[in-house]
């Protein structure tokens, strides 16, 4: 087994990891990016639709992926595809395997950018048989856009969020019919224009208040049984079903390393500098909050790059170990808020927080408190917070946090 040393080891070549790698390599650090797939770019690689990059230079996902990878490599980062990080070999060392064999890479800083995945049918405990033709959006997009595979002729989409509409678009691009989008909430959880577009332009029913209760068929899927919350049931004949949304972080490496996880996000807990519980280990992108946009991931990659640079300058000097690694206090989003990231807070934090709510909240007012002491109040007079979109809380209040105090709570008035 060979063993090497680098300044920064980034795990995952998606928007978050590549952005961090670009900036750190530009700043002169020796950066290596590990990517288990055969090509870099992460999820945008198989999102054929536009909406990536920045206005007015809107790009498709694959173009965005190529540009991110090229700029990281141009900056001098070593982007190694087909290499899998297997496990930890030390506090900031990972064992890897690739076609060249096993290696141990020891770094002064590690950035986890391992992304997220959609929960598949089994994890959602959808009963029935186990036929072929059952997809997640991720698999569907790769099948259609990367491999040109046949995906069936009639597809039911489970979910009606933005990603579900993207899946429907992929189904249509593959020449198949979208039978319906099926969603449990009483109101379609995507932007109203999106839902209207599906219903009117594509004549695709969006069935709200409806759940898929059983998959049918031996060999190949023959249909799905659905139940409306008023008790009515029906069978939708189809040969393909796509489970969309319900993202969870790919937190396996973080968990294997014993990093503290946040119960709300199930990703590694980080403070405003995107520091995890282990000195020198950072986390960025969808592993923190499955899943936000590629732009959000890239922003975090850029933000973490600054924190990593500070750590390389001050934190890794002999004798300094741990001194520059504040642990912060937990930051908890109380119901009906579902999660918040970052989810630890130190008085110096300046990075805004992303929240998700479980229920629609018209004109919400957020209260930030610690041990009953109010730290901050933030109004959103023009916004209705909705489950499928993030709500941003500023970090203007963090200097009031007592680092020796209890958890900081964010509540909705």
């Amino acid at each position, binding site marked *: 087994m060979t063993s090497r040393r680098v300044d920064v080891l980034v795990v995952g070549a998606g928007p978050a990891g590549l952005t961090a790698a670009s900036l750190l390599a530009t700043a002169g650090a020796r950066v290596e990016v590990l990517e288990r797939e055969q090509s870099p770019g992460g999820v945008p690689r198989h999102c054929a639709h536009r909406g990536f990059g920045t206005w007015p230079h809107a790009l498709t996902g694959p173009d965005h992926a190529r540009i991110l990878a090229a700029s990281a490599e141009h900056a001098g980062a070593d982007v190694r595809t087909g290499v899998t990080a297997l496990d930890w070999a030390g506090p900031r060392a990972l064992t890897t395997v690739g076609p060249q064999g096993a290696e141990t890479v020891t770094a002064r800083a590690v950035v986890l950018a391992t992304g997220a*995945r959609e929960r*598949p049918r089994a994890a959602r*405990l959808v009963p029935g048989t186990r036929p072929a033709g059952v997809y997640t959006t991720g698999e569907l997009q790769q099948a259609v856009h990367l*491999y040109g595979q046949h995906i069936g002729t009639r597809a039911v989409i489970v979910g009606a969020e933005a990603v579900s509409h993207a899946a429907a678009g992929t189904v249509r691009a593959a020449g198949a019919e979208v039978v319906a989008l099926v969603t449990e909430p009483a109101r379609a959880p995507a932007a109203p224009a999106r839902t209207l577009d599906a219903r009117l332009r594509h004549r695709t029913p969006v069935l709200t208040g409806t759940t898929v209760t*059983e998959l049918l068929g031996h060999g190949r899927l023959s249909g799905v049984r659905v139940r409306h919350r008023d008790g009515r049931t029906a069978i939708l004949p189809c040969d393909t079903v796509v489970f969309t949304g319900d993202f969870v972080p790919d937190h396996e490496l973080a968990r294997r390393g014993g990093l503290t996880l946040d119960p709300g996000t199930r990703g590694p807990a980080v403070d405003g500098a995107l520091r995890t519980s282990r000195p020198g280990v950072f986390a960025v992108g969808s592993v923190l909050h499955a899943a936000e946009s590629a732009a959000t991931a890239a922003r975090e990659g850029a933000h973490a790059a600054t924190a990593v640079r500070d750590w390389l300058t001050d934190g890794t000097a002999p004798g300094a170990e741990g001194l520059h690694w504040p642990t912060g206090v937990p930051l908890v989003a109380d119901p009906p808020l579902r999660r918040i990231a970052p989810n630890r807070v130190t008085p110096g934090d300046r990075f805004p927080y992303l929240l998700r709510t479980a229920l629609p909240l018209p004109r919400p007012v957020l209260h930030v408190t610690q041990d009953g002491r109010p730290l901050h109040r933030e109004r959103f007079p023009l916004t209705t917070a909705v489950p499928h979109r993030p709500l941003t809380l500023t970090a203007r209040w963090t200097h009031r946090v007592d680092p020796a105090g209890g958890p900081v709570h964010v509540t909705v008035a």
Partner: protein
Amino acid sequence: MTVTVSGHLPVEPYDVAVVGAGVVGCAIARRLAHHPGLRIALVEAQDDVGQGTSKANTAILHTGFDAVPGSLEARLVREGARELAAYAAESGIPVERVGALLVAWDEEQLATLPRLAEKAVRNEYHDTRLLGPADLYAREPHLGPGALGALHVPGESIICPWTTTLAYAVQAVRAGADLHLGAPVTHAGHTDGVHRLDTPRGPLHARRLVNAAGLHADTLDRSLGHDDFTVTPRRGQLVVHDKFARALVRHILLPVPTALGKGVLVAPTVYGNVLLGPTAEDLDDKHATGSTAEGLRRLREQGRRILPALLEEEVTAVYAGLRAATGHDDYRIAAHSAQGYVTVGGIRSTGLTASLAIAEHVTGLLADTGLALGPRRPPEPVRMPNLGEALPRPHQQPDVVAADPEYGILVCHCERVSRGEIRDALAGPIPPRSLDGLRRRTRARAGRCQGFSCGAAVRALFEEAQR
């Protein structure tokens, strides 16, 4: 080496036809193939071996401690367990001797434990030990509260049922047996000393017939004029949890059987997952292999009591298998000499453990019907790809990756399956006919993401091999 999946079946009569390529049928074909003079056909309805009861079981290599003493099952399980343990070691089939704990949750169950220990002794198993709650919780710290004690059966092991079945079939085929897949037997008749099996691929003739048709054994038995037993499909739903759950449990946690029935078990798998199940639902439909909302709800309710933290872990698979219940509390293995026919019916969940001993027993019965076995030549040993976590997988062996870099390129990341392993499975002697067949051979797409990351790439490799 002959494996067919389509086209007309051979016209020439076989010496022996074995119907059903489950773990038992494959074991019998393998044992018969020890005799190079015999022409053997293994006839299977599905497109792969091990597709019925064999693929949806609890993957336990039993000691036979709780069999009915003196029964044929008790003897075959006892003998088969020893033989299979040795065979697995020789063939690279993953086995872990984790031991079982029969956990008592109430006074009635606690009172049952000493009787089970005595029964074990009558089954020639002497290593059981009663544990008090302190010992039990020391062994299983994540066990839910309220357990009163347990019976420890250290010999119970976990095994890869799929690799076992495939290993038997590969050896049988390599030794000259013909495997005919996709050939459901629709009717069987016996005239002039020759059996005629009708299939959609045409008839197949054989001088001797072995009925190892599992769930359908009673139907085949009746078409040959016997009415010895009825198979009632008993559905068992099982939930598989992600590898992070493996650290929660060290033993197979077995329910204590009481008058009120049997509970569910929690068991690690050789792949590093944790199983919860099975349900036991007597049905009429021999195709009802679907899971149900009610079944899953009840399993999770019972699982929460046994191992509360298990419920927090991600579920990677839910499946339902049908066991062949017959209403008899022993195997129904019978020879009909005049017909040259042996029925191997009522092989319950112990069939995997007993498979090698059943094969030996059935071979003896066939010889008793007048079948001349001819000279015996032990088959070439087989070496199966390791799907288990206890021994190093190919990507973990530097010399293997150095010799062939394809073993260093992981395609399925959750289960860490390399392109080399997928390539090998696709080029194997009994290649997969579907993505599910590839999954069983390699574990590709069997993990937590169920193909989110790798599904399309795995399918591309599979489809390339079909061209």
